[in-house]
């Protein structure tokens, strides 16, 4: 099954890394196929950052995301630029600390930045979102996500990031 | 070995005009190279484009005769890939200071271990006498028919400012001093730059009142101001004559260098 996931937020939140981690989890540990792409702007910080991943059981031919079925949105500007046009059948995970708009599609409010700030560190808000993404959609397995996070984060921050993932897994749980 | 054993005799006769000073500079350079006791197979001559840059073609080593202005960039590749090689570059004022100016300042900045001999005839000789970045003010060339209106570069000041470890200037008259300067350059780790003012009777001399080769060489001799003397004048608060140029060892230092022989 082909999933097309779009991440958006502001530069510095780790939007690109989030997409890389999910792609890595799928390819390296779930034995699936994935292609990760991103939009490059001249800004290294701020602005609206966007990154996408296609995950499939079969080899991926056309590598770009056409109609995302999953969104992870972490800033208001990111929502307006890359989330507002979401198809009704999509599902959107919203960082409810930072995004006040809501889409027409199904959405899950994840207070990732607020919770990360309160209990961990604000820098791991994107990992909280990844945990929530996986518990809500199961695009990759929890175990694979964990391994891909450990591959990708700086040494010495492993515990912090795994706690963030765990927090996200809880926040994303659907009844 | 003697310096004439470095010549590629099957290339003779050479292309230089009667009265050209480039041969003098090649001889002085090879004499210095010969004194280093280097092996031919470990020595690479590199050049760009112009009269000066034809020199490696007459020398019996591996050599790269490259594109206009780019000799130092090619030489950087050779020397960084194989620091065991001895790398000597022949260039001219147009090749080095105009089209190759950026490569020149960056090779000095990197202080890459090579010796660069610049034959500065103050004109583009091979293409028939156009003005160069070192053509003196008011001098005539085919592209400065009313006299050169642009101030010239001081290549030695440029090399010093950009970071070269060794910088010297002599003229085609000062053969003993030049040979010694090239030798010190070859011995000094890092970037060594030796500028040699040289007569070009065909393209420069005949346009600029040097009808005889000897007149121009005499001019170079009489307008040379030894660095020590210039420094003394400055110390004493005396004026430095404006129509003279400084010769001698201008810079010698030991900045960190790249590509130095292991």
């Amino acid at each position: 099954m082909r999933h097309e996931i779009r991440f958006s937020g502001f530069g510095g939140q780790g939007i690109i890394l989030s997409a890389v981690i999910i792609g890595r989890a799928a390819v390296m540990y779930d034995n699936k196929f994935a292609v990760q792409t991103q939009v490059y702007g001249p800004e290294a910080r701020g602005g609206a950052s966007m990154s996408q991943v296609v995950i499939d059981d079969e080899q991926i031919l056309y590598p770009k995301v056409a109609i995302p079925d999953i969104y992870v949105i972490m800033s208001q500007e990111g929502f307006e630029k890359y989330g507002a046009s979401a198809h009704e059948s999509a599902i959107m995970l919203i960082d409810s600390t930072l995004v006040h708009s809501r889409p027409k599609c199904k959405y899950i409010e994840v207070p990732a930045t607020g919770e990360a700030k309160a209990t961990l560190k604000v820098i791991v808000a994107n990992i909280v979102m990844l945990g929530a993404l996986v518990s809500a959609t199961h695009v990759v397995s929890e175990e694979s996500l964990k391994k891909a996070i450990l591959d990708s984060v700086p040494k010495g921050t492993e515990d912090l990031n795994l706690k963030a993932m765990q927090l996200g897994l809880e926040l994303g749980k659907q009844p | 070995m003697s310096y004439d054993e470095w010549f590629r005799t099957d290339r003779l006769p050479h292309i230089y005009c009667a009265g050209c000073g480039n041969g003098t500079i090649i001889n002085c350079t090879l004499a210095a190279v010969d004194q280093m006791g280097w092996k031919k197979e470990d020595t690479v001559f590199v050049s760009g484009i112009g009269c000066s840059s034809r020199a490696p073609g007459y020398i019996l080593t591996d050599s790269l005769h490259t594109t206009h202005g780019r000799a130092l960039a090619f030489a950087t590749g050779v020397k960084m890939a194989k620091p065991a090689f001895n790398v000597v570059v022949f260039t001219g004022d147009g090749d080095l200071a105009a089209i190759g100016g950026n490569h020149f300042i960056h090779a000095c900045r990197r202080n890459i271990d090579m010796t660069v001999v610049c034959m500065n005839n103050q004109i583009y000789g091979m293409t028939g006498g156009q003005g160069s970045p070192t053509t003196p003010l008011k001098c005539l060339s085919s592209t400065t028919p009313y006299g050169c209106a642009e101030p010239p570069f001081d290549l030695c000041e440029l090399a010093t400012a950009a970071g070269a470890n060794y910088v010297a200037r002599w003229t085609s008259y000062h053969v003993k001093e030049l040979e010694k300067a090239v030798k010190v350059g070859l011995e000094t780790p890092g970037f060594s730059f030796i500028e040699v003012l040289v007569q070009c009777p065909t393209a420069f001399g005949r346009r600029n009142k040097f009808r005889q080769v000897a007149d121009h060489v005499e001019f170079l001799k009489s307008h040379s101001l030894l660095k020590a003397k210039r420094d003394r004048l400055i110390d004493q608060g005396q004026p430095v004559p404006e129509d003279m140029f400084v010769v001698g060892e201008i810079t010698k230092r030991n900045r960190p260098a790249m590509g130095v022989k292991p």
Partner: protein
Amino acid sequence: MTRTEFWQGNTACAEGALAAGCTFFGGYPITPSTEVAELMAAKLPKKGGIFIQMEDEIASMASIIGASWTGARAMTATSGPGFSLMMENIGFAVMTETPCVVVNVQRGGPSTGQPTMSAQGDMMQVRFGSHGDIAIIALSPATVQEMFELTVKAFNHADKYRVPVFLMADETVGHMREKILVPDSVEKIGRKPFVPGNPPFKVTDPDLIPGFPTFGTGQHVHVTGLTHDERGYPAATNPPLHAALVKRLVDKIENARDEMADYDIVNPEAEQVFVAYGGPVRTVMQVMHDKKDKNVGFLRIRTVWPFPEKALLEFKNAKRFLVPEMNLGQIAREIERHVTVPVVPIPKLGGELHTPAELAAVLEEKA
């Protein structure tokens, strides 16, 4: 044996170069190729190789030619504006038969254009951009796997044919991350050994390629960009000698066109045939997969120059060739030279891949 990685195309390119034994990288940062330089800067020194950031792309190209003569496998990586600056010394490498690899991760031009967006606008520049009559080899990858494999192949071709070889990637393939199977080792084809005693540029074999007289081996070779005789000595005013030299430099590449041809053919009986290289290959593959129509063929090209024209003839029933490119139709013109049926360029400018719907729509149009 292979291992699985999730790599960016540019990472795969640098890793392919390292696997191929590249020991010298001279370059200048430019989007969207910079990751290649950054990875080489990190990895080459640990392997005893040299990374040097030159002052511009003219110097980058010069430095890898200098390094190549010392025997090193040398490369640079750039994009359009830098590629334009390299044209001068690319000609020098052709004239002096210097093996080297140039990666061009293409972006939108002309001029500064679209630094972060994809294009294939340099496909004619790579073939004809340097002055004089030249022949070169250009390979175009469509996957991260091919970024690795074709980089290895580029080094082998460069050494074998003594010519600059170009990896003509595009931003799409250079920047995407996907699954790649990385081999433990790769095949290396080195330079033809030089026979001492021969003049350095004397050709004795039917392949028209002289042995390589590496600097430092006592051959005293004079390498010049001037027209030169087989001793390497300038002979710039000898008309027959110039004609023979340039003809040989072109023929040694053009004569090997079939040997170098690298392409895949799908549905050779088809009447409508896509031809693609680089990024657009991915869209065509999607359309082929979705349509499952035996009457739609596909020629997927990896060796773009010299152009593998024989492959076109394998589509005996072809009524038209459809050529999606991220330019205004560059290789489409080359195809036109070789076939009698209509060639339909499908240009896409703006920096994005054709969508599957766009290509499917062209199939529906009346021929």
